[in-house]
């Protein structure tokens, strides 16, 4: 009987203080932590296009997965040095970076890839269908435009 009582007490303490902590944590969050939210994926059009999916991987799979599938987006790209202060680039600098920003080994796109299937962004398709756009391109003038014409 004592075993049952002790077990019941331990279980009850876990439930009692677990629920109480969660409840008062939520209340404290609402009461004293104001505005604890940030822009979400819809604000920034941050939708992931998964290029590889592996389920139930063994040890060697999971050790090599990141190495095999990781892509270095910066490879062969021209950009200002990391230690430089961020600033608006001059039209000349922009043109220079655009010229250099062709990844190594890349080829210019041409019309010979007629059979290539374009990747379809489902969200963009949905936006088009619904006649809805979050693209704010029109808001911004191009950087290479003279700010004081």
């Amino acid at each position, binding site marked *: 009987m004592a075993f*049952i009582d002790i*077990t019941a007490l331990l279980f*009850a303490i876990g439930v009692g203080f*677990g629920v109480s902590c969660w409840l008062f944590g939520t209340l404290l969050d609402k009461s004293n*932590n104001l505005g604890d939210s940030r822009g979400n994926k819809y604000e920034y059009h941050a939708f992931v296009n998964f290029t590889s999916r592996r389920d139930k991987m063994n040890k060697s799979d999971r050790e090599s997965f990141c190495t095999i599938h*990781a892509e270095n987006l910066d490879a062969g790209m021209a950009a200002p040095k990391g230690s430089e202060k961020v600033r*608006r680039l001059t039209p000349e600098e922009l043109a220079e970076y655009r010229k250099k920003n062709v990844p190594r080994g890349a080829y210019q796109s041409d019309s010979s890839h007629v059979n290539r299937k374009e990747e379809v962004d489902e969200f963009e398709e949905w936006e088009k269908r619904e006649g809805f756009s*979050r693209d704010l391109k029109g808001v911004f003038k191009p950087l290479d435009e003279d700010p004081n014409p």
Partner: protein
Amino acid sequence: MATLCKNCSHALVFDPARQKMVCSACGSTFLPEEVESESKQYREDLNAEAMSEVYGGDKNQYMDCYVYACSECGGEIIINGTEASTTCVYCGNSNVVFSRIAKQKCPEFVMPFSVTKEEAIRRAREQIRKGIFVPKEIKNFSIDCCRGIYLPYWIVNAAYSDAVVIKGSVKQGKNSVTAYFGRAGKMTLKNLPIDASRALSDESSSKLEPFELSRLKPFDEDYLAGFYSNVSDVTYSDLRYATLHRAQEFFNEAALEDVQCSGPKVIASRPSVRLENDMVYAMMPAWFITFRYKGKPNTILVNGDSGKVVCGLPWKKVLFFTLLILVGILITIGAFFVFKATLPIFFTSSRHRSGRNDGRGKIIGLLVAGIVALFSVGIRKVVKVIKNINLTQDKAMFNFMKKRQGE
């Protein structure tokens, strides 16, 4: 330099309620884009003198401070290396220190304040009054200082790629086993605002989001009149890190949603981010309201456009823990009687049917796991909230706001 009223030559300030430049002396109002400012060209050539040049002595003594002359009274305006507009400590007039924001440093866009100082204070008070763990003294706080500051932001477009390994539990027959999943993918981020001030933590400034970017206006320094402002002082590394950090959160969220298991957790990743060179430099408005509680400074942020209130307030610790323990004891007593009545069924049945796998042992195992999980979730919730509250009370934010000239 202040923009002067063409009727009486008094300094104009931007009024968020009317969205116009207002002269406090004669009451004239002007649209910012209409104000003919002959001084704008002159401002571009206006140079600051380093404080060490003015006063001599050791360069390090004054750190990164500069001296300007107030266009109204000629008084000395002392600013640090990143301020772009401030208030004269002698005459109270606003001054835009334009040489700092000229040419390449000039933002392309500005989001004018649309929430007035009074409205910001009213909203902050309204939110604070609702808090049940907010001390009475804070509910009726007296404002130490309230400043409207334009914060510099880089609005970036970026490409992000990542490959992650996720650990989670899946059902295999009647058992639950650990499984590993791999997800690799790409995404692009459009118009992500990244705070460009090193003095302000990204954690705090990102809570001011979202910003309605369609309300941005082409930059005109007249919008800065009457407010403080800072220029960007972050490096490309800072910007890359901040963008990667935000992108990684979005990616991990999507990857965790994509796997079918319980308790998924990212255990390995290899992210890569590329910032596009078409980033846009903009200034975003925020009200910084400070008050003191038990001698310690506290800062409330209010988005100067949407009016969103951001702050972590000191809390009634004694009341909080007393209620938490009392409610915990009450639930414990209730749960004790429930468990005392139900547990013997499992244990006695198991004993009588020893050797027979009737699943009751597993039910007890699941019960224990559930209780441990519940307790851990509860504790983690409290710790996370307290950590978040402390984060928005950091001293760096108070110093960012306070160390400026003027009222």
